[in-house]
């Protein structure tokens, strides 16, 4: 489904990501882990079109999408979430989802302004769909609250829900659990696993190693922009290079 070859991004002389390869098959759930500054988010930015790669190629369903605009890549079915800017603050929870439905509710300007029956029908369909998504993620009770007034955990879930509204074929989740407490992490992981079971292919960045281990079928590990390992979660846990990358000094001390 997704085929990344030799992907690199240089900022000045610094290689943030260096010759990164990864392929993801339809229906998989894959984790991308690594210490801070390893280049995980930069990789996401390149896949989703927010950053233009210095070199390398990104193929999605047989089409070369390297360096295309974010909206174009989104229209092909790759939807990402963000670590920081995750919701439309001044909109209600419901409006957030409706905004996320942009792609599958194309309404022309005139159609929309004149409030033609066709647009009303589409509007109703979008609202129903939005409600369904809110029920699915468990935010239906608070659909009329302004997003900025939500607690942090709910904001993160809403961020995922916005992405779901765009009907992703491949969902890129950037640290969905950052800043969450243990209970929230468990809930979020359950939600992600539910999304995956519905048939969405997922690539997720995770800082919380245990969370990633529990849910991913396959894991790729980045360190200083290079992929240092890839394989089953259990293998990664025992991989010497991975442990060193994560624990650095301590690993050396015990050796």
């Amino acid at each position: 489904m997704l085929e990344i070859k030799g992907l690199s991004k240089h900022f000045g002389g610094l290689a943030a990501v260096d010759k990164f390869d990864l392929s993801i098959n339809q229906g998989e759930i894959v984790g991308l882990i690594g210490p801070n500054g390893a280049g995980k988010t930069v990789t996401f930015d390149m896949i989703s079109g927010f950053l233009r790669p210095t070199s390398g190629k990104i193929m999605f369903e047989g089409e070369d999408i390297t360096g295309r605009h974010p909206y174009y890549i989104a229209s092909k079915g790759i939807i990402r979430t963000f670590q920081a800017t995750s919701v439309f603050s001044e909109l209600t929870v419901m409006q957030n989802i409706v905004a996320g439905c942009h792609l599958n509710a194309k309404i022309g300007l005139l159609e929309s302004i004149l409030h033609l029956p066709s647009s009303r029908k589409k509007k109703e369909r979008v609202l129903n769909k939005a409600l369904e998504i809110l029920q699915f993620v468990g935010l239906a009770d608070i659909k009329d609250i302004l997003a900025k007034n939500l607690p942090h955990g709910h904001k993160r879930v809403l961020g995922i829900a916005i992405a779901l509204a765009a009907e992703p074929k491949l969902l890129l989740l950037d640290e969905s659990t950052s800043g969450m407490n243990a209970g929230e992490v468990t809930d979020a992981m359950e939600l992600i696993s539910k999304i995956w079971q519905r048939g969405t292919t997922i690539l997720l960045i995770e800082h919380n190693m245990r969370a990633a281990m529990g849910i991913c079928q396959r894991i790729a590990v980045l360190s200083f922009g290079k992929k240092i390992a890839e394989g089953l979660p259990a293998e990664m846990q025992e991989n010497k290079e991975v442990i060193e990358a994560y624990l650095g000094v301590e690993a050396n001390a015990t050796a």
Partner: protein
Amino acid sequence: MSVGGYTSALLVMKLGVSTWAAMLAGGVAAAFLALMVGYPFFRLKGIYFALVTIFLSEVIRLVLEQWSSVTGGTMGLTRIPKPNPIVIPGLFNMDFASKTDYYYLILVLALITILILYAIERSRILVTWNSIRESNDLAASVGVNLNNFKVLAFCICCFFPGIVGAFYSQYMTIIAPNAFGFTFSLYVIVYLIVGGAKRFAGPIIGAIILTLLPELARGLKEFQPFIFAVVMMAVIAFMPQGIVGIPQLLTKFVKERRGHA
């Protein structure tokens, strides 16, 4: 507005187009200009975008001054025909001989504009524009083509002033390059801020109040820019929601008072 005014005036004077078609063409011309400059302009963000729009209006003014063979140079265009009369036999007869007829015309234009804008306000497309305002990146991530939507908004925003420019030229029967100066553009922004930018009624209320107020205080005309500046700063400091935010502000105030008591 200059673009709309000149376009419609020239169409009527040189090509003999009907004044009503020319008025519409004034709006279309302004929107078309917005379409042409929109894509390059929106590569810039925030304050830089504001700067280039100011530069553009200066460029337009200079072009109008220099291109004298068409625009009449600094003197502008004179003896622009009045609007063609509207006559419905037995009902009414508007020949635009008196100011009253112009008043009703601009009133109808204003109502139509508000109606169209209100329809947009209630439409699905507003959610998309709001999402862009809230976060460019997040909107793009769900597939919004930012440039297209920004340019579309820009075109709509230029269409109505284009019409007004055409109306102005037919009302004054003259138009000169300095008809709509930089000060005028600034005043429009003051209306917006004082009225309240986030609510539909805000700019309308702001424009009404700040147009009527100077009429009541004609003796202070020289000080108008000062007064406007003070009013605007006061609004920014004490009621960031603008005049439309006053009811909210009051209820909040009363609640807090009760809370303390």
